[in-house]
């Protein structure tokens, strides 16, 4: 049968950001593909060598709008390790709180986009209506709706007062109730299952071999979540990774649905156990040495390599984002699928091109 190669993206209705796949088809079946990126590459790693290390907190927040807090936190954790800074206990719990509301925000954003990818626009709007409450919570606590700038080297820049903590708990309750009402549609609806079950399967061995991370890895049966390492205050909170075994698009959606509830619970625990005291310590001097830091972002593991020479400017900042790790997995997930399933499978990795291209 004759083969044709057709571009998917960079502009496509399911893509919020530009990614380009050259896909080869036999009839309507995908047989091969290769990725092409570069539409939004900003060279942020190189720019970080030109800025002073405290300025880079604001720079790395702009790697990705959705995971902005966790980018800043990972960078700050690295600098704090190099400088031997012990942050206050209150800051550790606040970092958990901000991380988890970022994760809820990200998962709800994805669940909406995923529903939109298979044409369920009503579900998309309902998820985003709940997400709006989380974005309002971010504004109420951090002062911004997306890029919070709450994390600082040495702790947290914006502490929470008693009123904000109470209001945050109310919002978490509302979000939980909204999700309990809405999630059965994502989990049980005939249309959703028809478009997602058995699509883009990645088994456990392939998920490891292809370097998958986060919800994609856990949807293939690997119980690995970097929060298990106990960074920030996770070591003191009750937490188990969410795992599914089928490795298809439906399993990836279920992982994110269940993780949204876990994140609500973790944010609640962080607020309930929030220690009294300062939220940050003063930072003096410059970092020296090299370190690797990993954090569990909504899309999965992010890795920061930082090399410093004792001056204000870093020698090297390297960021490996979760979507960068997920792109090779598409080479395993997509071949054999039908043309109509490409958007759904591609969305199932929760692609963030802003992160990928840094």
């Amino acid at each position, binding site marked *: 049968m004759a083969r044709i190669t057709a571009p998917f993206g960079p502009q496509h209705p399911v893509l919020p950001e530009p990614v380009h796949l050259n896909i080869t088809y036999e009839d309507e079946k995908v047989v091969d593909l290769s990725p092409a990126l570069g539409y939004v590459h900003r060279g942020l790693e190189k720019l970080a060598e030109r800025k002073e290390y405290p300025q880079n907190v604001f720079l790395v927040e702009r790697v990705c709008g959705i995971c902005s807090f966790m980018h800043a936190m990972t960078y700050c954790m690295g600098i704090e390790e190099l400088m031997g800074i012990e942050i206050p206990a209150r800051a550790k719990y606040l970092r958990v709180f901000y991380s988890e509301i970022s994760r809820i925000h990200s998962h709800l954003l994805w669940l909406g986009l995923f529903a939109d990818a298979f044409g369920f626009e009503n579900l998309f709007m309902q998820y985003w209506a709940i997400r709006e409450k989380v974005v309002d919570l971010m504004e109420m606590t951090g002062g911004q709706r997306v890029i919070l700038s709450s994390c600082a080297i040495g702790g947290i820049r914006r502490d929470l007062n008693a009123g904000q903590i109470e209001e945050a708990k109310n919002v978490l309750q509302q979000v939980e109730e909204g999700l309990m009402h809405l999630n059965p549609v994502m989990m049980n609806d005939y249309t959703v299952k028809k478009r997602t079950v058995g699509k883009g399967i990645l088994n456990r061995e392939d998920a490891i071999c292809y370097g*998958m991370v986060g919800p994609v890895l856990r949807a293939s049966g690997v119980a690995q979540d970097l929060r298990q390492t106990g960074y920030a205050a996770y070591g003191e909170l009750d937490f188990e990774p969410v795992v599914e075994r089928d490795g298809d698009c439906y399993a990836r959606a279920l992982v994110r649905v269940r993780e949204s509830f876990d994140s609500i619970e973790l944010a609640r625990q962080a607020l309930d156990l929030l220690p009294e005291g300062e939220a940050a310590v003063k930072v003096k001097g410059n970092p020296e040495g090299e370190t690797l830091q990993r954090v569990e972002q909504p899309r999965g593991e992010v890795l920061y390599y930082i090399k410093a*020479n004792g001056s204000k400017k870093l020698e090297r900042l390297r960021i490996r984002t979760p979507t960068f790790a997920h792109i090779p997995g598409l080479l395993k997930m997509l071949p054999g699928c039908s043309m109509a399933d490409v958007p759904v499978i591609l969305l199932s990795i929760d692609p963030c091109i802003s992160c990928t291209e840094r």
Partner: protein
Amino acid sequence: MKINAIKITPEEILATVQKYFDDGYRLVTATCVDEGEKIHLIYSFDRELALQNLELCISREQGVPSISSVYACAFLVENEMKELFGIKIDDIALDLGGRLYMVKGAEEAPMARKIEEAGEGVE
């Protein structure tokens, strides 16, 4: 965490990486640290949340073999290092020929550190 990388040579890399693969490690990424004349490549592997690092030190002219024959997913980061830093990486399973990010006619190896840049940040 500290790097604690195991130093290896380009000749040892494929056999060493194969061992990590056989032992069930996931390739996390490869990191290029460009010091001008010397380039350090750090390969990071994870198994059950424990990180292991391998480090290669090469000259700019020296090539390294691709590890994509062992870890297929390595093709992406290897294309990135080749394109942005000008590292010579041989036999990448899916070699995008310098077109992962860049377009024809663009500056070559835009993130490579020029020798006069090395140590620029030192006060």
